[in-house]
């Protein structure tokens, strides 16, 4: 089968010594940054993007893959040992994991999270490899209107389907879309919303916006909460190894979590959170030890953690095959591709198969490295958790500005960083989600391009958008994803949606 050959070729690319080194650096940095409290995968990827600037595209993307998986892994360590999850996808892990750590079972909790992540990552990455060619084939028949409909669907699911308010989600999205208009129009070369400022002609950098919103906005927000005393880090006591009973209770949960998480990530439904909640609910219903839930049940760590990683791999399906980011992390990864002039999508599979399959193969390798690296090094990660807040956040700002300066050492770019940082802070204070702004900024120009192409072909006839069956179905789903939550919230059933909010910091 062709997929298998491609994957083997990819493995050969990824197994070159330099690429192995890049992957190793990637997973180490990704875990180290991801483990820091308050830093989720989106910020990890945004902060570490500048490290990869000087590498060739292949090496850089391989390092990136490692950073992505490492960041996901680091987040779960934080939530088990510290009751403040670094990423919202780890909230569920914290429910049971932190209880286990308090009961002195931190070791097995970390182990089941690590092995569960490995199992889920392995299966889901293989799933990605086998599904991708089919979606690429499907995507080749997509015209501009189908792409536009797909992007509308992504906009709706990222901004308003989950979270506690349709209004605030949509507002965030449209702020992002408005920022996306700034700069030179791709099709006619006219300057829009740049007010004669030459620096604005290039548009707003996605990485600048993401770093400002996630790093600076978050730092300001944490600082503004005042001193609430140090967080308590649970020490890892006893053995890291799982007992036979732990294994027996974990393995089914890992597989169930993977089966739940992967499809959810692969659909343009936004966020790994939904999968973790569903997995937690499933484990709670199926367990033979219901009394342990809420007091540190190992299934409650194993399932959601597997679901989390499976959907992280799942988000790569729309990203790589369609060029469609459905989370803030994926949006920043897309920015990473674009910095090399690469546009993920069906064409990339045709024009640059080595790169794509090398990337997929290095995800497998990164996954394996994480397993080997993390269990023995757990003591080191725990030390990182105990960095006092002032130094931690001072360091975060140091690296946040370093990335921006490295990309473009101008006073102007730092000014943008400060302005968007304040915007991110204000949005946090008023409960606006951040991810839609980032996704809107990067996906806005692509959606506009497709829309204008579709309308040019039809000579301005808008009905053409609804006359293709695929586009019509996608738009109907998008409308449903917008309207159903509105009705649910109006009838006071909004809490469930609020819990599923996709807010990655």
């Amino acid at each position, binding site marked *: 089968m062709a997929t298998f050959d491609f994957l083997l070729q990819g493995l050969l690319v990824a197994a070159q010594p330099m690429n192995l080194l890049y992957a190793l650096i990637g997973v180490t940095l990704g875990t180290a940054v991801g483990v820091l409290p308050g830093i989720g995968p989106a910020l990890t990827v945004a902060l570490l993007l*500048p490290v990869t600037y000087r590498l060739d595209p292949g090496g850089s993307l391989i390092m990136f893959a490692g950073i992505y998986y490492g960041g996901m892994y680091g987040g779960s360590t934080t939530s088990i040992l510290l009751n403040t999850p670094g990423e919202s996808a780890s909230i569920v892990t914290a429910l049971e994991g932190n209880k286990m750590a308090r009961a002195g079972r931190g070791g097995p909790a970390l182990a089941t999270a690590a092995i569960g992540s490995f199992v889920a990552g392995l299966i889901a990455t293989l799933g990605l490899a086998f599904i991708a060619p089919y979606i690429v084939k499907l995507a080749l028949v997509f015209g501009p209107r189908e792409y536009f409909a797909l992007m509308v669907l992504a906009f709706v699911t990222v901004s308003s389907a989950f979270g506690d308010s349709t209004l605030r989600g949509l*507002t965030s999205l449209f702020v992002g879309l408005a920022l996306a208009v700034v700069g030179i129009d791709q099709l006619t070369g006219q300057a829009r919303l740049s007010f004669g400022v030459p620096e604005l002609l290039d548009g707003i950098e996605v990485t600048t916006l993401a770093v400002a919103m996630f790093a600076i906005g978050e730092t300001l927000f944490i600082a503004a909460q005042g001193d609430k005393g140090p967080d308590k880090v649970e020490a890892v006591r006893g053995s890291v190894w799982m007992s036979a009973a732990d294994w027996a209770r974990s393995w089914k949960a890992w597989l169930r979590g993977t089966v739940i998480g992967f499809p959810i990530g692969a659909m343009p439904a936004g966020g790994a959170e939904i999968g973790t909640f569903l997995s937690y609910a499933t484990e709670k219903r199926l367990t033979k030890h219901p009394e342990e839930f809420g007091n540190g049940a190992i299934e409650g760590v194993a399932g959601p953690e597997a679901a989390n990683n499976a959907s992280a791999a799942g988000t790569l399906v729309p990203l790589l095959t369609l060029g469609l980011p459905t989370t803030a992390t994926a949006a920043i990864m897309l920015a990473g591709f674009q910095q090399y002039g690469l546009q993920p999508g069906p064409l990339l599979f045709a024009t640059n198969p080595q790169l794509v399959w090398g990337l997929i193969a290095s995800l497998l390798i990164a996954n394996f490295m994480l397993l080997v690296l993390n269990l023995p090094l757990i003591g080191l990660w725990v030390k990182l958790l105990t960095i006092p807040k002032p130094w931690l956040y001072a360091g975060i700002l140091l690296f946040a500005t370093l990335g921006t300066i490295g990309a473009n050492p101008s*006073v102007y770019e730092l*000014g943008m960083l400060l302005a968007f940082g304040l915007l991110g802070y204000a949005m946090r204070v008023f409960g606006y989600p951040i991810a839609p702004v980032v996704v809107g900024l990067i996906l806005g120009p692509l959606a506009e391009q497709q829309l204008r192409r579709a309308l040019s072909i039809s000579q301005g006839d808008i009905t053409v958008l609804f006359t293709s069956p695929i586009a019509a179905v996608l738009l109907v789903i998008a409308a449903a994803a917008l309207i159903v939550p509105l009705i649910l919230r109006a009838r006071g059933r909004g809490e469930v949606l609020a819990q599923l909010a996709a807010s990655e910091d």
Partner: protein
Amino acid sequence: MTKGHHPSTPTRRPDRAALFIAAVLAAIAGLIFWDVSRLTGTAGYSQVGPTTVPYAIAWCLLGLSIWTVFEALRGDFPERERQEVAPVIWIVAGLAAQMLLLNVAGFSIATGILFALTARGFGKRRLWLSLPVGIVLCFVVWVVFAKLLQLSLPAGPLERLFF
């Protein structure tokens, strides 16, 4: 949107901060209308051009602004926690100082100041200690990233002293 230092108003009264957000959204919409209207009408025969999408976005922002007004009047916005202003000012001052000093004093000194002022915002009051620590740390970072990874980070007097 600007800084949210507005104290949370009691519920059931019009939420003034939310009304302000609505005004800002309307202002952005107005700005888009104004800017795009001066683009020459190059819609061409298909009636879609560089102005189509910005107009659509501006109309949506206007709609969201009106929606926000309704929610503000009904007190639908969530309660906000009290925000400490002083730490925010310290950190913003640090970022501003770094921005202005970067090309004059170089990466290490400018970013060292940011480091110390951020730590100050989080309660480390001893600037005479955190400032040198910050500058030394930033210098090490500069060496690693500018020399080893070849990122273009501006050099200042301190960097030129060694390289």
